[in-house]
């Protein structure tokens, strides 16, 4: 009888230790899973932040490139450039007699010039001798988030202003691109 009791006790202890071991293992598994998911959440959030910042940096870089590209296109556009007959055009010079009318042409054909200048604002400000401003092209993007400004100093040639000789002024070409 005593032996039987002892055996029953042993098997109970065995069952108890087994169930406790199971409980411990379960808790362990839950803890591991918990840590695993926390790590995954951390990983995802870090990756998201990294992706977002690199995307933003890339956007800024692209905007900078577009600003330079637009400046280049504006500087060499035949609608504004100074010419010398059949000879090569004068660099960094705008013919003011053309500028005054190009403003209207750019405005009338905004969609045509959009392919060249995209979302941007191009204006020419006289620095010397006057201070007049000519808004050449203005096509802002709705709800724009970023903008990049560049400028370039150019000569402003006006043949009807000079006394026998073309009159040259100094101006600043401002270009702002939007994204």
């Amino acid at each position, binding site marked *: 009888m005593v032996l039987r009791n002892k055996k029953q006790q042993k098997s109970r202890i065995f069952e108890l230790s087994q169930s406790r071991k199971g409980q411990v293992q379960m808790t362990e598994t839950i803890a591991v899973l918990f840590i695993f998911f926390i790590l995954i959440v951390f990983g995802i959030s870090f990756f998201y932040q990294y992706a977002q910042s690199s995307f933003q940096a890339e956007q800024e870089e692209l905007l900078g*490139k577009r600003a330079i*590209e637009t400046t*280049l*296109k504006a*500087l*060499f556009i*035949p*609608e504004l*450039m100074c*010419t010398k*007959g*059949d000879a*090569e*055009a004068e660099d960094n010079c705008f*013919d003011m*007699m*053309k500028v*005054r*009318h*190009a403003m*209207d*042409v750019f405005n009338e*054909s905004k969609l*045509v010039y959009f*392919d*060249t200048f995209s979302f941007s604002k191009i204006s020419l400000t006289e620095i010397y001798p006057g201070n007049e401003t000519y808004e050449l092209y203005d096509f802002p993007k709705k709800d724009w988030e970023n903008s990049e400004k560049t400028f370039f100093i150019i000569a402003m040639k006006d*043949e*009807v202003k000079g006394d026998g000789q073309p009159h040259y002024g100094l101006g600043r070409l401002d270009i702002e691109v939007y994204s």
Partner: protein
Amino acid sequence: MTHKQQKPKVFELSHSRKGQVQLTVNWIYIVIAGAVILLFFAGLVVKGKDAAEKNIAEDVVQVMGNVFTGAGVSEKTKNRIETSGLAEFTFQFTCMEGVSTFGIKDKTNSVQDTTQPTFSPEEIKTTRMLLWSLPYKLPYKIVDLLFVTSVNTKYFLIAFDDIDFVNEFDTATDDSDKTMKINWQSITTLEDVDPKGNFQIRIVDLDGIYVKENGDVPVKALTLADDKVTAVTFLSGNLVQYYQKQGTVWSKKGKPVEMVSLGGKRDAAKYAAIFANDGNQYTCNMLKAYKRLGLVNKVYQGKLQDLQSYYTENSQLSLTKAGCYGLAGVEGFAFEQNLKNEMEAYQNKIETCIFESKEGLASTSCQDFVGLANAISNINQELQSECISLY
């Protein structure tokens, strides 16, 4: 007693079997997990490779777009783009309804353009791309025409009458930097054509007599695929006809196209015809130039108005510079052939030409530019002597 001894044995046996099963399950679990992990990384590598290729394609298209912009705005410049890392890719250039598309063949990324006239073979597979731009003047500068070719695209120029152009081509394409030199050769007969290791060849028949419909393709060129052997012939009346190899003979590629130019040295329209893939690409890109001409002419019409106002306001000048008033078309002084009338007629012709070109009509009014552009050029030359010139 025996019964009691039997129980632990059964217990031990069931335990060892359970262990065996557990051990097998563990191994299966490890194998499955390992396979899943391996598959995951393999997928990651494949995806990464695809993404890297896509990125390269995007970057290259983007960079090339920038280079094209640079080459397009700075006239008479030559540029090169090293594409050795992308030698296995084929670059594709198409133009439809005034919209050019440039990209890597069978890749989704491409650049579209509606303003820059670009003339090139339809496909380029190379280690180095060459870009060259020339100003298109009618008679003033309208836009820079951009020519794209490659070191492995060879041009064979054949001429007897128009040998001067071959010499001009030699001077124009010459460069102190040999890596920027256009791959071309002057030949006297079509039998001299030897493609060697080039990707494609273009025969330029400047006299318009050597390449004919159903005429024999040079024997050595038969090794290349049909679309990689093309020819362009310059016919009388400023017409250009494109041909393509079809088996062993030449076959016309579309109808002849009009070449609108004032002639002279470094005639951008003529060079464009040499570098264009075919008549469709040529007219599609020239349409961009005509559209631009309409806008540039409007600006010059405005400049002329300023000029007329200036002469009207400074009436004392009419005593010493009456010719300027006459040439500019100032009321009361205007000569029969004056800038005002010529430019108005020019604008009308430009608009008709653009309309006809868009409609795809067999237009001849675009050729009418030339007479009016010449008239404006002559008046401008006269103005240059003592008046304010138009351009």
